[in-house]
């Protein structure tokens, strides 16, 4: 059965897009067909991590929402660049990216005109069916709005990413409670960018007791990720790094 995984954070800068991209690769490598939709229309960027230039996109999610194309036409097979060479007829693993437009005019237009949020849900269902996806990862816009609430509501698993930061802590609690009221099947919290000096178990305990939700992973703050600067996929170049190993544990929880 296909699963929709909404990946969200209350504030920007939590490492949501990098975490989404790297989890997608790990899930795909486990033998799955994975789609990633960048619904952060206000500030898209996950395509950068996959090494795709915006001019290579004939269609984007924006075009679909404006009724100019099917959502399948806005999906790009990024398997080779993110996993490596896979036989052209191999059904698995596969990764598809559905990017949002970075053109300022397009962003301004969608902010000005809005879009039918229900169309977004239709698009997700079309992707699952037309691309025969095992997992659809939704990289959401930070904060709570209609689009993020929809993504939360329709997800099979809702992944919240936060930093060990007081500003994140309160806002993330709000989002967890909203997800609970929307009867989301699974709520998983990831604490990201944890300095080495912090007591991880104490952090975990605070998050789990404060939110009454599962902490799926505790990701360290690491120089190598900062130095990569979203120019590529961390898990490919750092296969034995503690960050990669923890991401793999999170991916495993998502798949089981």
């Amino acid at each position, binding site marked *: 059965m296909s699963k929709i995984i909404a990946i969200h954070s209350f504030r920007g800068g939590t490492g949501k897009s990098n975490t989404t991209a790297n989890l997608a690769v790990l899930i795909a490598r486990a033998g799955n067909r994975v789609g990633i939709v960048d619904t952060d229309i206000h500030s898209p960027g996950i395509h950068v991590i996959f090494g795709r230039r915006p001019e290579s996109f004939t269609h984007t999610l924006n075009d679909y929402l404006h009724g100019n194309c099917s959502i399948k*036409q806005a999906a790009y097979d990024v398997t080779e660049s993110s996993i490596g060479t896979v036989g052209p007829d191999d059904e698995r693993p596969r990764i598809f990216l559905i990017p949002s437009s970075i053109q300022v005019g397009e962003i301004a237009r969608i902010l000005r005109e809005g879009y039918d949020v229900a169309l977004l849900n239709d698009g997700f269902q079309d992707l699952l069916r037309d691309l025969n996806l095992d997992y659809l990862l939704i990289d959401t816009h930070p904060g709570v709005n209609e689009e993020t*609430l929809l993504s939360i*509501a*329709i997800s099979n698993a809702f992944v919240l990413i936060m930093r060990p930061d007081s500003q994140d802590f*309160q806002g993330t*609690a709000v989002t967890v409670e909203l997800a609970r*009221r929307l009867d989301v099947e699974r709520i998983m919290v990831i604490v990201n960018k944890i300095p080495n000096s912090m007591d991880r178990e104490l952090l975990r305990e605070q998050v789990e007791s404060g939110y009454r939700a599962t902490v799926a992973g505790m990701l360290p703050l690491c120089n190598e990720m900062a130095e990569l600067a979203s120019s590529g996929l961390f898990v490919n170049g750092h296969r034995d790094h503690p960050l990669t190993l923890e991401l793999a544990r999170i991916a495993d929880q998502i798949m089981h």
Partner: protein
Amino acid sequence: MHATLNHTDEGWEILVLSRNGVFMKGKRIEQQLLQDGHVFRLSDRGPWIRYRTETPAEDPGGGATISFDSSKTPIFALDLQQLDREVKQIADGQYFQELQKRMTQLRSRPASGS
């Protein structure tokens, strides 16, 4: 009175008196010999307290006997009243209410087709 701290031959010990309990590492305790760095919580939603025996680098000042904490792990305080207010504000909104009602419809709605 929630708990008492008693000095024994083995060191300081916390003895829980309140029905709301004291929690360490997610588990309820009744009595615990404290060690440097131990963190416990008064009730499952109450304040966090860290027990330290290390001599502070700086004198915390007369009267500031419980304000010193050199740990680099912050203790996050959740404002439950603010949480309830913010959740209510969103959850009582029209979109959220409709989304809750329409969830079954949205999940079973046929896709628009490519």
